[in-house]
């Protein structure tokens, strides 16, 4: 059920007896702007750890524990040209507990308290809390580079989007931005966000829909004046392959490749692209998995992934550094093979079954419904489950070969431990 709480503020409720918990998610969504990304990440940390009613983590943790271990968290993410600040809480359904407490109603009231009553004094966020969270975010961002797979992926992302500062920066921000952000600035930015961001609230589980709608109606969100943000960012094809290399102290090298792939969420090529990706590197049956890992024994992981909100395809492989040229060649050969139709019909049927299995399995996760509701609102379209299945099944070999022709290798990042 959908309820428009105000212009640009939407409540979606999904009821089901399948799950023993109820989940409430509030998304604040805005066009991604380079200088707002770190602010939004810091806001997410502040909102997750404090509010006027729960001024420190212990007070907050006690409130959550009293709701039978309610799980509360805040986070940031990117979808195409939009940045999303998300607050989520999940509570057990009291039906399965020895209590009469209305946990879902309490959880909604808790979220409203977090959103509308932040911990402030004198027109700014509480200074001590702000300082602590700013320091912690700085450390967290700096430590991200310890995860070499993630580090390599991030470097590739920066290369792929060299023409857009907002697209280059990770959704969790940049450590060097933090020194210039004050508790006063950030509070002003938050007040602006509360008024202008698109808001999507999703409640999923077994609950009284009218009561939930009434509670959110009473929250008092105002009409948004800003237009609805665009759903897609279009990557620019640079045509030629450019590789950047870096040497660090490490035993396993990482080779990350970025391709221009102008296919977007649920456009005419979308379903063929899904099948193509499974065939190329998206599954254990894929060409990359079979040829780079299994046959040539060259890697522990070698896989591909799609970003259909920005029009790119990525390949990531963990390899022995001295095999760089051979791995690059094998990856190129697999793409050529698919473009030329060098794959069995049986394999296509199998990867389709794999996609269908993933899709149907995802219906067993409460989170799926929240993610889908958000994408549906972002793209202003939705599709019944049956139609999705039919469209995957209908993809032909010719369509896969045609969509593979749209793939152009643009960027590579090679992180190695130096000469072997």
């Amino acid at each position: 059920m959908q309820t428009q709480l105000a212009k640009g503020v939407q409540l979606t409720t999904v009821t089901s007896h399948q799950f023993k918990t109820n989940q409430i998610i509030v998304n604040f969504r805005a066009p991604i702007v380079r200088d707002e990304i770190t602010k939004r990440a810091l806001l997410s940390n502040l909102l997750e750890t404090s509010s006027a009613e729960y001024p420190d983590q212990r007070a907050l943790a006690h409130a959550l524990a009293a709701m039978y271990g309610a799980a509360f968290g805040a986070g940031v993410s990117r979808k195409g040209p939009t940045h999303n600040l998300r607050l989520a809480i999940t509570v057990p359904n009291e039906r399965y507990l020895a209590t009469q407490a209305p946990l879902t109603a309490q959880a909604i009231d808790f979220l409203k308290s977090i959103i509308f009553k932040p911990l402030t004094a004198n027109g700014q966020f509480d200074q001590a809390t702000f300082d602590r969270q700013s320091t912690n975010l700085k450390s967290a961002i700096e430590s991200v580079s310890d995860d070499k797979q993630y580090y390599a992926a991030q470097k590739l992302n920066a290369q792929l989007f060299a023409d857009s500062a907002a697209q280059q920066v990770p959704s969790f921000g940049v450590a060097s931005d933090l020194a210039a952000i004050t508790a006063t600035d950030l509070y002003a930015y938050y007040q602006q966000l509360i008024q202008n961001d698109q808001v999507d609230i999703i409640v999923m589980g077994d609950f009284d829909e009218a009561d939930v709608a009434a509670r959110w109606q009473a929250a008092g969100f105002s009409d948004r004046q800003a237009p609805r943000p665009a759903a897609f960012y279009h990557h620019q094809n640079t045509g030629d392959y450019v590789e950047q290399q870096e040497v660090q102290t490490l035993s396993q090298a990482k080779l990350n490749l970025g391709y221009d792939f102008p296919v977007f969420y649920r456009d005419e090529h979308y379903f063929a692209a899904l099948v193509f990706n499974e065939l190329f590197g998206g599954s254990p049956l894929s060409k990359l998995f079979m040829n780079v890992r299994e046959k040539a024994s060259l890697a522990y992981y070698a896989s591909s992934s799609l970003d259909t909100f920005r029009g790119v395809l990525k390949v990531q492989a963990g390899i022995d550094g001295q095999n760089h040229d051979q791995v690059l060649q094998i990856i190129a050969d697999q793409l050529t093979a698919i473009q030329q139709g060098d794959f069995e019909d049986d394999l296509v049927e199998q990867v389709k079954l794999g996609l269908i299995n993933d899709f149907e399995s995802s219906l067993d996760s409460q989170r799926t419904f929240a993610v889908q509701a958000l994408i549906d609102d972002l793209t202003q379209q939705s599709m019944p489950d049956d139609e999705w299945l039919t469209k995957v099944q209908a993809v032909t070999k010719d369509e896969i070969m045609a969509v593979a022709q749209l793939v152009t290798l643009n960027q590579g990042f090679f992180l190695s431990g130096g000469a072997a």
Partner: protein
Amino acid sequence: MQVNKYDQFNEVSYQTKLPNGLTVTLLPKAGFHKTYAVFTTNYGSIDNTFVPAGSDELKRFPDGIAHFLEHKMFEKADHDAFQTFGKYGASANAFTSFTRTSYLFSATRNLRENLMTLLDFVQDPYFTTKTVEKEKGIIGQEIEMYNDDPSWRLYFGMIGNLYPNHPLQYDIAGTTESIAKITADDLYAAYRTFYHPENMTLFVVGKLDPDEVLDWITTNQATKQFDTFQPIERRIPATATDGHDIIPYRTIDMPVARAKSVVGVKGLAPIEDGLAALKYRAGVNVLLEMLFGDTSQNYLKLYDQGIIDDTFGYDFELQNGFNFLTFSGETNDPAQFDAAIIDGLENWQPAVLDQDDLLATVKKEMIGRIVFMANSLEAIANRYDQRLFGAATLFDEPAIIDGLTLEDIATIAAQLLTSQAISEYQIRPATKG
């Protein structure tokens, strides 16, 4: 079939032992699209010294053999089990822990075909010199990848401190040198010893009809011949009950942005199996929450002092034959981090004694979290451990948590948190040169 009803959760489990010794547990979940099945042998990375089936002599096998065997089970003379699962639309995987090896799939369709594939591929070993040699490259890459992971190094560094004379200290995958020695004959010897149905369990949860599924499994198993089961003799070295073999402190340098530290506590006393083990685990988890959870005094104090931050976490590992605690986090000052944790552990009394309200809050939280896990087929199946907890499932846990008293928690704390059981391990940022 033994039927267990969990009225509070509106769930029912069915359990039986087949004539060949295999223990089967089935748990239907209404409304789910997917079925998740895990086929587990009680054989893990620490079982590197045992009497091979058909022999009477103890033999030391290369480290990493259980994990190597797990990888090789998928490959057959003319096909790969992954492909068979692929043909039926299932997603398959396997993992090896210290004490177990599990093979699993999840599927929304073709349950019968997938279940038969799981049983058949695990019960049909095929190893040749050629295929064994080829796997060494793949697993070598896996080992290298973990070598670069500071969190993994931190965890195994601590285990090395707590268990310096025990196979726990070895990486589950072994080392490049140890796996180089593995032969097809070794794999067959391990297989024949540990993959007897008597040493295995099958847990199936999700969309299923218990009578139908049990019928499929029973029919499949009846067609296969197994030797008479011989009780398995494994040699796991005893560890000192006074903790004198624990290495109190080590540090290494790695290219990390910020130092990481872990404080470990080795459980010195043996733990009983069955419901007692489940109760012990619940009790320790309550104790940890009271001592260092986000509802505790310690947590807020250390957080506000900047000694811990959001990277702080703790874990209790309880398995057959060993148990230990770890408290880890990133820190600018590892010595200060360790000192603060150790102080909290050695002076646990104020956080526990007379804290009736805190105990009640923590119990609510933990019982609620069991309800969360009831949504997850994977959590339900993977929390089950027949060798350690007997027939108990996730749904037995709320009553156990509810029954815990402050005296229970204090008894556990007094016995577990002793100075001689504590150790420190640190990763310091290498100077870039």
